[in-house]
């Protein structure tokens, strides 16, 4: 057993880790009995397994919750609306909740080497109905858009995330959108984490024009001057969030995202005359997690 002790002492390159190891070696390994992941109920084994898929037997964690988000009526609006946001997830017990920013698209990491992740990304952009808001009368509807693309994420250190997304829209807009963000993630204690960082978005002409351009017919119907919105820097901003795990079951979180519209989006008469280039989104939510077991 001397082998390990000597090896631990040789770890001079990383004094703090060595200290931790030695402390651990000299520690009473108190495997506390504070039950954290007690299963709420047990389900019987399913009568069959699906081909190619792993058996569902084992422990699972379900998270349910509700959140609320106050956000601009539409991009460029000076008024806001409150929207409820349901929270639901199911995963293998013990699977780790990775850091996620409020502006992140839905994504799956097909490539994961620990500090570098990449994979497909998807974002849904809700339709913009002209008859819902007085500022939009005469501009016509913009259908819902579905943005498909990919993301890359890099952690130079565990507390700094750099993320980029590139997506192509179909439906309401057919342009290209690029998002870049950085987040400093500071765990104050294990249960309390705050994060903050800058954001930048670039959009192509086809992604900008449907929301900020005003053609001749729209100008006539809306009273706004004609405007040809082109590609370029769309917005720059800053976001911050805080999450606190009260106990293994309950977690609360809150966030704020500020965005300053730039370029042709900011110069659009819709924004200049009837809206605002300052866009703020505030959200908060609470979730409850419980485990169940499948035999």
């Amino acid at each position, binding site marked *: 057993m001397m082998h390990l002790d000597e090896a631990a002492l040789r770890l001079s390159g990383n004094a703090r880790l060595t200290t931790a190891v030695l402390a651990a070696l000299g520690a009473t390994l108190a495997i506390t009995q504070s039950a954290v992941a007690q299963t709420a109920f047990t389900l019987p084994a399913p009568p069959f397994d699906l*081909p190619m898929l792993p058996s569902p037997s084992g422990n699972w964690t379900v998270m349910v919750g509700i959140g609320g988000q106050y956000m601009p009526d539409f991009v460029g609006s000076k008024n806001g609306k409150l929207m409820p946001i349901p929270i639901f997830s199911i995963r293998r017990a*013990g699977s*780790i909740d990775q850091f996620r920013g409020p502006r992140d698209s839905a994504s799956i990491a097909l490539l994961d080497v620990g500090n570098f992740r990449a994979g497909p990304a998807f974002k849904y952009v809700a339709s913009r109905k002209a008859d819902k808001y007085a500022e939009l009368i005469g501009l016509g509807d913009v259908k819902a858009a579905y943005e498909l693309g990919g993301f890359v994420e890099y952690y130079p250190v565990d507390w700094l995330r750099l993320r980029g997304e590139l997506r192509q829209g179909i439906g309401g807009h057919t342009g290209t959108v690029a998002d870049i963000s950085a987040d400093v993630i*500071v765990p104050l204690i294990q249960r309390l984490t705050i994060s903050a960082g800058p954001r930048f978005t670039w959009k192509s002409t086809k992604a900008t024009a449907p929301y900020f351009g005003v053609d001749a017919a729209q100008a006539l119907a809306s009273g706004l001057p004609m405007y040809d919105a082109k590609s370029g820097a769309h917005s720059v901003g800053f976001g911050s969030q805080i999450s606190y795990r009260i106990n293994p079951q309950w977690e609360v979180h809150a966030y704020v995202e500020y965005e300053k519209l730039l370029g042709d989006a900011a110069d659009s008469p819709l924004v200049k005359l009837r809206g605002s280039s300052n866009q703020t989104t505030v959200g908060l939510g609470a979730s409850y997690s419980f485990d169940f077991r499948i035999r």
Partner: protein
Amino acid sequence: MRRIAFLWIGLAAACVALGAAAAFETRASRLQAIKTVGIVSAIGEEMSLTQAGLTRLGTTAQSLPIGAWALDELIVQQATRLLEGRFRVQPLTYRRAAFAAIRDSAVAPVNLLRSDPFKELVRSDVTPQGLDAYIVITRARSKLGNGRNVEGVGLAEYRTLLADYGLIHALYEVRIIDGKSFNVIEKRAAGPLDNTGTVPLAGPSGPVDEALGGSAPSERLRAAVVDLITRSLPVTFGDMHLIGG
């Protein structure tokens, strides 16, 4: 038109149900047909030391040799004890380092599409051949914090602004490999125990209390790892329907 659509949906559902039933029959009947098994264990040669949370730039994981702990021999003993009520367990000879060297690809779809590397190794490296099944226990991986992976046996430290948290882990996965076709009948990573603590990992782990010093620390560390394995192995085998638990 609508009726035809419903017919197609019904047909697809029936195909899925039949396929699922067939798969169930295959897996269940394969397990029931197993009489003789051998056990391979290859998680206990080294211990990783990992930091996550508020770490310095350039902090990398390190590892220490712990072959002297004879963890793999202990795992084989424990597994034999658990399985011998139902199967005839035979001792195996194999190159442990060859099993320990295999790593999952970082590209997730590759792991789904490629042939399981362990079944090739069982076919080529394990004696005796001809048993009904081989139980292969190897290192599993989990995320720690946001940008760090930990695997196998190890000590980890999660650093925050106001406190540091130490934890010990024994992350492993179990494969049941058919002794004739060498197909993987079942594969399962050991899940977390009920006393995982405040730093979650996707496998057996527990907090390290740094409060006290003492004599024979490595024996105590080994005992904690053994405790994680001893408590998680019956649960994992139970989840895989290898034993009644």
